[in-house]
């Protein structure tokens, strides 16, 4: 009984804290352009995918330079 009450209090505290950060008590915000109708959440995910894709192309991979040097020096590919 005691633990149930404690869990309820903790749960309501957690909900309040999360609610203060992410207020979901409203219709979803959307991006509209001609026939395109996307929620802001989906636009954020698509944007993140594009950012990660671009970073994957330009960021150096750990150990890649050493392998390239070894290959140019006649090492194993």
């Amino acid at each position: 009984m005691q633990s149930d009450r404690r869990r309820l209090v903790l749960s309501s505290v957690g909900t309040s804290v999360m609610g203060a950060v992410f207020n979901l008590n409203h219709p979803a915000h959307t991006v509209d352009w001609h026939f395109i109708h996307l929620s802001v959440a989906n636009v954020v995910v698509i944007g993140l995918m594009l950012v990660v894709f671009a970073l994957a192309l330009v960021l150096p991979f750990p150990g890649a330079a050493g392998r390239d040097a070894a290959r140019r020096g006649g090492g194993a590919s």
Partner: protein
Amino acid sequence: MSAAPATPTAAVAPTTTRSKSWTVKVRERGVEALPPDRLLPDGQPTYVASWIYVFGVASIASLIVIIGSGSILALKGPAWWHETGVGHFFNSIHMWSVELFFFAMVVHLWGKYWMAAWRGGRGRVWITGAVTFLVAVPCALTGYVSQQNFDAQWISTQAKDAMNSVGVGAFFNLTNFGQMYSYHILLLPIAVVALVSIHVLLVRRNGVVPPFELDRKLSRS
């Protein structure tokens, strides 16, 4: 007491009989198509040391978490995943691993599209990857409508209109929980895992697609 013959002649099967066996044929074809050193190689070419090549394996890692967490959810049932703390945890693990799976798979698809990964006889590798993405979409959709909550009701009634409009509503009824749950935990996961397995075996067989400049150098030499 007489001595037994050293080697019974029947024990040594003639090679002509062995070659007719379907198991031998399957084994020989399997080893020919995918020798053990190619199936489980010691290393990868240097050009694979790039971040753009990690999203395929990131998709597989996410899929393993999806299957593991989904199996636990299936064993415990809706009351557990809605009403207990551990159930909420596994429900979240399952949902977020799906998010990661699609995130990694989309970046992987973009990367492979822009490097024309179907080059060098790798058409089937590309096709199996693209079809996996297409099969994974209804796999996720049937999961959203199997949650057993208001979110599932909302999604199923909205998506049902879409299914009816394209003429498949009679076969694929999003408001039928039993049908959706069967699709979600059995039919579509089997299809996704089978396609991913074929995809990985084809990658092993054909090798990872090289960058364009290396391809050009190889064709010149």
